[in-house]
């Protein structure tokens, strides 16, 4: 394949959705949904092209404006970024299919829901832009684009609870991104460059860099909603409309997680300390326990799913203590690749499972009229497909084989034992038990015979199918781990990623 052409792909994955957003916005409201789906389709095509280019030719760099770092901004795609771009594409496409009938129904009720498509495509572009950007300041701009689009989507319904949650989300996001930017200012002052690659070559563990790194990570932790900085998440994610909740929970929090991972491993590895890794692990553990416990206590389904996100995000942060202890002392320690792949797999599996869960709950809400856990009795007979989707997603969240969640948790568990950091293992297991608790509680309700027959509103078939497909994908990525790992291996910091992936196969 032509190498020159390949370098265009990173730019295309950003340009395509953003062009879509502008075109869709300019169209009259009634045509927007019709134009939105093709735009989503093109974006997916661009993402697939990018992944294909990365697999066949290795990491790809696009120098925007033709200047190149350090003066210009580069887009850089390697295995890690392509995996996240692909996940966004897959989830994004299915959510788009779900959103079309959803907003066709909601559109009659007014509000600003006609703005869903431009906002969502803009958000998609900013996610891709964030996964690909190789410039610290440009990352700030994409984070802000992402934050504004996400909050705008969260308040789309215009209802007061959503507005309050949205404002809290916005202010938390602004505080977080300003902390990040303060870090960027210090880094630029110290090393006079913004390109991730050049920064990583230039940094030393000087006090300014350590403080800068701390600020950047702290800011991003707020945006990722890691315990105890998750205060904004449950309300914001649960008060949004179903497709938006899915996007926020499955994708948006992953973007800041990706950035933490990137900075931690690729850029500021000299500033990373074992204690910092353990601290993130402790926060992650607290999130696993607290989030899952809170989810168990919720009576409203959407709040339950949102709290479950807090818990599942916690798992992803168990990756940091595991890769940090051996990374500097023994770069070839066998558990590094396990932990690395496990953490990323957790992000992927949670993305699919959580999107599926929010969409399924959205179907219930549409059918029953509210999201009280007790009002979904006997739905297994009435909405079997959606109940099945919820069950599949739940299996992955718990981490039962052969799901993607199982691969993730299994690899993390293996890494905890082989690295000697056994103290994370009880956290992983307790989290799984708590998760099993709330998943089975919902399923039990769905299987229980209803007290009196209730009138169900009709739900478009597409909505049920997309929820099921997402749930099925959450299981499937557990069965077909190698394909994902081949991509992830391009430019990976830990060599044995592929081998480890095979070891993690059930």
């Amino acid at each position, binding site marked *: 394949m032509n190498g*020159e052409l390949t*370098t265009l792909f990173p*730019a295309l994955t950003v*340009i395509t959705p*953003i*062009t879509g957003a*502008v075109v869709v*916005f*300019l169209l009259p*409201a009634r045509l927007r949904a019709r134009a939105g789906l093709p735009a989503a389709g093109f974006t997916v095509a661009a993402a697939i092209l990018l992944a294909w280019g990365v697999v066949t030719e290795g990491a790809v760099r*696009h*120098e*925007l*404006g*033709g*200047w190149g770092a*350090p*003066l*210009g*901004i580069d887009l850089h795609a390697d295995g890690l970024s392509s995996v996240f771009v692909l996940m966004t594409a897959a989830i994004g496409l299915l959510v788009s299919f779900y959103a079309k009938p959803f907003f066709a129904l*909601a559109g009659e*009720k*007014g*509000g*600003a829901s006609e*703005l869903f498509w*431009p*906002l969502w495509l*803009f958000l998609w572009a900013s996610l891709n832009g964030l996964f690909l950007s190789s410039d610290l*300041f*440009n990352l700030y*701009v994409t984070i*802000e*684009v992402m934050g*504004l*689009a996400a909050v*705008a989507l969260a*308040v*789309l*319904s*215009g*209802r007061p609870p959503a*507005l309050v949650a*949205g404002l809290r989300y916005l202010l938390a996001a602004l505080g977080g991104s300003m902390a990040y930017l*303060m870090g960027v200012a*210090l880094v630029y*002052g*110290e*090393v*006079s*460059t913004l390109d991730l690659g050049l920064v990583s070559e230039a940094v030393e563990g*000087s*006090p*300014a860099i350590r*403080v*800068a790194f701390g600020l950047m990570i702290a800011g991003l932790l707020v945006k990722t909603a890691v315990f105890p900085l998750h205060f904004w998440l449950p309300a914001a994610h649960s008060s949004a409309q*179903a497709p938006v909740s899915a996007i926020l929970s499955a994708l948006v929090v992953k973007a800041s997680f990706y950035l933490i991972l990137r900075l931690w491993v690729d850029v500021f590895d000299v500033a990373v300390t074992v204690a910092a890794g353990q601290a993130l692990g402790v926060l992650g553990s607290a999130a696993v326990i607290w989030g899952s416990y809170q989810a168990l206590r919720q009576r409203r389904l959407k709040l339950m799913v949102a709290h479950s996100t807090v818990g599942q995000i916690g798992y992803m942060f168990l990756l940091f203590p595991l890769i940090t202890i051996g990374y500097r002392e023994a770069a070839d320690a066998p558990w590094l690749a396990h932990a690395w792949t496990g953490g990323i797999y957790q992000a992927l599996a949670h993305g699919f499972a959580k999107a599926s869960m929010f969409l399924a709950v959205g179907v219930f*809400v549409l059918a029953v*009229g*509210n999201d009280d856990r007790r009002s979904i009795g006997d739905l297994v007979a009435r909405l079997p497909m959606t109940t099945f989707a919820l069950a599949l997603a739940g299996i992955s969240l718990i981490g039962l084989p052969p799901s993607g969640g199982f691969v993730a948790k299994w690899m993390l568990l293996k890494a905890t034992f082989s690295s000697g950091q056994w103290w994370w293992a009880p956290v992983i297991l307790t989290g799984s038990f708590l998760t099993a608790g709330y998943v089975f509680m919902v399923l039990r309700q769905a299987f229980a015979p209803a007290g009196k027959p209730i009138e169900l509103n009709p739900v478009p078939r597409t909505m049920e199918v997309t929820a099921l497909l997402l749930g099925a994908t959450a299981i499937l990525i557990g069965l077909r781990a190698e394909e994902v790992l081949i991509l992830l291996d391009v430019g990976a910091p830990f060599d044995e990623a592929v081998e480890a992936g095979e070891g993690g196969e059930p």
Partner: protein
Amino acid sequence: MNPLEHALDTLLCLLLLVLAWKALRAEHLYQSAIFFIAFGLGMALAWVRLAAPDVALAEAAIGAGLLGVLLLDSLRVFSRPPNGSGKARQNTDPGDAETATATTSRHPGARATRLLATAAAAGLAAVLVTAIVRIGDGGGLTEEAAGQLEGSGVEHPVTAVLLNFRGYDTWLEVGVLFLAMLGIYCAGGWVGLTGGREPDSPGPLLSWLIRGLTPLLILTAAYLLWLGKEAPGGAFQAGVLIGAAGILLRLAGYPLTAHLSPGMVKLGLTLGFGTFLVFGIAALIPGGAFLEYPEYWAGEIILLVETAAAISIGFTVFAFFAYLSSRDGSPSEEHNSKPSTTNSD
């Protein structure tokens, strides 16, 4: 470094700290807003002292000017009782909308939280200051920028960075403005600019002044736009002046939004971003990178992009104000055809 200048800098910095403190701690929202605007003006002075005239212009126009107008306009809303379905307790005492201090102190343990947070902030300040004074000599990208200035199509280094070297950031930033307007639409629950309440006339003298000033504002905007090529100035400053002209005209009672069709609003909001995008994509066709301008045409393309961006920025800034001030962020005042949503999702 002469001691008088040092004294001046120190004094200015102290002033900034005091103003920021006052803005955060003032009892009335009104005082808060005034202190904040004064803080913004103080910052403009600081930018000048730091040899950053471009930033001073941007801060004065956008930071202190536009945001100041929006803040003052919001005070009007917060200082009177809510008009919606407010079943909540109504705070009817005008001018005393700030009840937070009172509410906080009622909580047991709120005092402890406050102390703890203050201590944490002081600790953070200490850490930051230690880190900052230890920053080395750097070097920046001044030399790289100077070296590539030739091929950028403009002579002013800041404009070269904004529109060419880091044009991608600037493009996204114009996108952020557009996005913020979409967000405001979402918060308001309704799309468009027409309708809503028209402002009262501010009296003959002010109307007369505004009418006289508007052509001057537009002229200055054009001048700044043109100047950006070789001196401080450019699309953002020009755009905000255009926006300011619109805001003033609206305040003078001109029904500017009455004639705007939805299509024109959409066009106004996307013009700058779209033009950027079109030229960026056009650069791909001869095999270049996104937003790579051919050296020969770079100056012209940049001027064109900047003009479109300035118009769009001006329009968006005007839209922020026109939308908010005419309907106080509540959809219930107009457009009965689209009632406040009661989506049960």
